[in-house]
């Protein structure tokens, strides 16, 4: 068949230079080696760190040349990155160099949100916060303070607020991102996927992605293992309304109608069961509820799924057989950001059930059994037991199966209008590294809550939308200017990694540990920080784990011994941490809570005529809003585009590269965004990268660049199992 080259699309991604900078000498560095020849005079030093450009925490080395930032390179033994940093990780010095950084503590002068602050000393700022917290404790109880946190430094504020007497710790990364994934797997295998993922992709013979766009999502380990599988000839199956980078690598691209994934997954389960493609020994030995599952999916034939999903029955059969042929080295990837349609825990669970039927959990090429390095904690007094918690709020009570506080639920329990109905409510917020205005949908709700608080403390590196709403802004250092706690993430090899300061803090910024400890002392909670400084803290923990700070400064990453095998061996008498001690294909627990014991397909709302479903995702060069202002990355990818199917663009007369505004179903209009006319997307949806369209004028490179998808997400569907806030149910049209 002759290939039709109807259109060719070229995108050049240009790089950008490292900005100019002036700095003092580094601290605690290891002199590495000097370059030869003309650079003989250069003094090169390298310092171990782990990255914070996203939260994947890849470990590597920060190089200085003559005391000035040079480059960041992965640590070869690090299992988050395999020594290969991604686009963002390589650009880490950009955030250090960013002249828009917060420079001193700030105290609000006018009403919240107006962004009128006066510069303050650290002592003044601590005094202000400590007084307010004392008042809140006396008046409402310490439980009425909540923490929103994203990133390594949040740990120190948890420690501080635990000591103060609260346990309400929320993270938008739960109910607004990967919460459904963790709950879907917990409710099937008894264990979460966690981060980094326990996916054994590098050994997979078949990789199935449902909407997960590895490659555009550049968590280094994931990209590394996905492409290793491709290099080794693995079959890639991608279901996505968009011809993603991963779809471009796939043998089978299934351009599924958005919102119908569960129908596809059920049809796959149907085929795997009815064609007896499942791993009989594994299913008999390790699962419960097989017959009930079989009965539940009886009518979910590929023929049933075709008109729903637009994926032909024979394609559904062929791909199911392909998965089974390669099992157990087949992985239906659990994805990461999963809050799409409100039945997300169930959708993830449907995928988990397929992995169980194929016997890939605990098997090579499927999912390995991760282990975490054991490092004893620094001893300290036990914090007081809170009398109430998030679980006592209306949202907390409603989502009993949720394993973490739900950010929007904290908002709901903060707004004063409904206070009287509440068993508990919040009067103070600490917000660490989490731009809530951008991270949560329905921002008017967030703002309403912010207006009603007695105290809002924001700890961040850059002035973002949320810092404008703070009473006190505390300038955090970048990860390149501080120690943090040890990285002890789960993985194939239990590893510990050290983050140590590469350069002294710029401006009057302070490391998160220092802020929490010193604020704690001001609040009379000094005994909960019983170490002199973080070096003493780390040295204690490392010595207990059989290492030392000086060893870790040389190694950066240290491998520890595994205790148990990486996989479940064939025939092993393995007990799963579920109620039945088996993989629950049919969940009695969910049934008891009134949920479907086996996932069920429900039809989701369709866009009205002339509207298109708003889909969003990641750029490989950005970690959402947090890197848009990075001087290096801002030039690699300065703004987002809206992907519009070529046929639809023709209907509307839209030209590639022209600017349009988008209007959603509730009349919200976006900022200007460039049109990308493309064949790479279905006609019933549009797509943009999340994180752009900053409204914060203080971010000179990010301000007003591209459009903000979050502002268009006025409709939210709530996951009834864990409270996830699904946002794929928003529709937009073009304002030309």
């Amino acid at each position: 068949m002759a290939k039709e080259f109807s259109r060719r699309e070229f995108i050049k991604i240009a790089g950008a230079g490292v900005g100019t900078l002036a700095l003092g000498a580094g601290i605690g560095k290891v002199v590495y080696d000097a370059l030869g020849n003309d650079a003989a005079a250069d003094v090169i030093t390298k310092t171990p760190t782990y990255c914070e450009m996203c939260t994947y925490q890849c470990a590597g080395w920060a190089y200085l040349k003559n005391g000035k930032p040079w480059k960041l390179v992965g640590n070869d033994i690090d299992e988050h990155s395999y020594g290969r940093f991604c686009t963002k990780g390589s650009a880490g010095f950009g955030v250090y160099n960013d002249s828009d950084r917060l420079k001193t503590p700030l105290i609000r002068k006018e009403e919240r949100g107006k962004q009128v602050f006066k510069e303050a000393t650290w002592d003044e700022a601590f005094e202000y916060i400590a007084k307010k917290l004392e008042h809140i404790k006396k008046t409402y109880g310490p439980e009425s303070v909540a923490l929103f946190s994203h990133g390594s430094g949040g740990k120190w504020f948890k420690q501080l607020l635990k000591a103060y007497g609260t346990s309400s710790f929320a993270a938008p990364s739960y109910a607004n991102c990967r919460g459904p994934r963790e709950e879907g797997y917990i409710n099937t295998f008894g264990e979460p996927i966690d981060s980094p993922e326990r996916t054994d992709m590098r050994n997979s013979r078949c990789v199935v992605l449902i909407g997960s766009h590895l490659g555009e999502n550049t968590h280094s380990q994931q990209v590394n293992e996905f492409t290793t599988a491709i290099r080794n000839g693995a079959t890639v199956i991608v279901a996505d309304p968009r011809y993603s980078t991963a779809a471009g690598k796939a043998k089978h691209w299934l351009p599924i109608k958005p919102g119908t994934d569960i129908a596809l997954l059920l049809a796959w389960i149907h085929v795997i069961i009815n064609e007896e493609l499942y791993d009989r020994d594994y299913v008999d030995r390790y699962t419960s509820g097989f017959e009930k599952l079989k009965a539940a999916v009886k009518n979910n034939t590929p023929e049933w799924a075709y008109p729903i999903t637009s994926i032909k029955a024979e394609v559904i059969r062929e791909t199911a057989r392909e998965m089974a042929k390669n099992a157990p080295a087949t992985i239906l990837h659990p994805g990461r950001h999963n809050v799409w349609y409100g039945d997300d825990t169930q959708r993830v669970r449907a995928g988990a059930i397929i992995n169980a039927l194929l016997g890939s959990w605990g098997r090579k090429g499927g999912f390995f059994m991760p282990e975490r390095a054991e490092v004893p904690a620094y001893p300290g007094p036990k914090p007081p037991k809170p009398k109430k918690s998030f679980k006592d709020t209306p949202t907390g009570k409603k989502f009993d199966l949720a394993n973490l506080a739900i950010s929007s639920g904290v908002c709901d329990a903060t707004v004063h209008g409904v206070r009287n109905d509440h068993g508990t409510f919040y009067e103070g917020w600490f917000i660490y590294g989490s731009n809530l205005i951008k991270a949560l949908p329905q921002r008017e709700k967030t703002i309403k809550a912010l207006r009603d608080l007695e105290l809002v403390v924001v700890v961040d590196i850059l002035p973002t939308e949320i810092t404008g709403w703070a009473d006190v802004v505390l300038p955090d250092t970048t990860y390149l200017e501080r120690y943090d706690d040890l990285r002890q993430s789960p993985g194939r090899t239990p590893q510990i990694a050290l983050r140590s300061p590469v350069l002294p803090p710029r401006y009057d910024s302070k490391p998160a540990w220092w802020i929490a400890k010193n604020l704690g002392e001001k609040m009379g909670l000094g005994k909960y920080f019983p170490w002199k400084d973080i070096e003493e803290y780390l040295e204690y923990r490392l010595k207990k784990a059989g290492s030392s700070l000086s060893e870790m400064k040389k190694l950066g990453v240290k491998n520890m011994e595994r205790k148990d095998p990486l996989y479940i061996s064939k025939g092993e008498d393995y007990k799963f941490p579920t109620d039945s001690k088996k993989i629950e294909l049919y969940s009695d627990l969910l049934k008891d809570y009134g949920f479907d014991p086996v996932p069920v397909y429900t039809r989701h709302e369709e866009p009205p005529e002339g509207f298109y479903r708003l889909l969003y995702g990641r750029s490989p060069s950005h970690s959402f809003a947090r890197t848009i202002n990075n001087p290096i990355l801002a030039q690699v990818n300065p703004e987002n585009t809206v992907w519009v199917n070529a046929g639809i663009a023709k209907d509307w007369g839209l030209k590639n590269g022209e600017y349009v505004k988008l209007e959603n179903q509730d009349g919200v209009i976006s900022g200007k965004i460039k049109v990308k006319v493309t064949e790479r997307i279905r006609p019933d949806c549009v797509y943009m990268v999340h994180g752009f369209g900053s409204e914060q004028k203080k971010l000179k490179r990010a301000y007003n660049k591209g459009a903000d998808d979050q502002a268009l997400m006025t409709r939210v569907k709530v996951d009834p199992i864990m409270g996830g806030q699904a946002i794929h149910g928003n529709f937009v049209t073009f304002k030309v």
Partner: protein
Amino acid sequence: MKLTKKKYAMVIDTKTCVGCGACVVACKTENEVPEGRHRDWIVEEVSGTFPNLQMEIRSERCNHCSNAPCVHACPTGASHYKKGTENLVLVDENKCTGCKACMAACPYEARFTVPEGYTSKCTFCSHRIEKKEQPACSTVCPAQAIYFGDLNNPMSAVSRLLRKRKFKTLLPEVGTKANVYYLV
């Protein structure tokens, strides 16, 4: 043993390249490339109509041509082949007058001028090769899609890959004998 000159080549696997741009940023930092300039870049080439599509993603840069138009075009000898190599094209910034004849001659648009006035481009990280290290883009690539080595050595990874896999070079019709090979 007779010492043969090196024929340095890069082999880039379009089947695994995800176009993330890690190579672009790693090159920027390694080589301290001035703001707004870049020595390598990503091209995505899509063909077909929905839903029958194909996409090739390439990390592109100077092709270090065996028959380099820039070297021929340079009036001062600033653009030259590095000693001991058949094809590693470098720019001697002290000899470069910034006339841009090389930029006009290069069919790949691989060159640019720096604020100091001379032209610049990818050097295959010549300074790293001297230390027996791979170019920065190759060592950073999370997809492990970028291979580098000597084509005059039949045992090198690049030689072996080109024997085993289908490949192409860019604009073969212009006769530059490019030495960046794309596995397809």
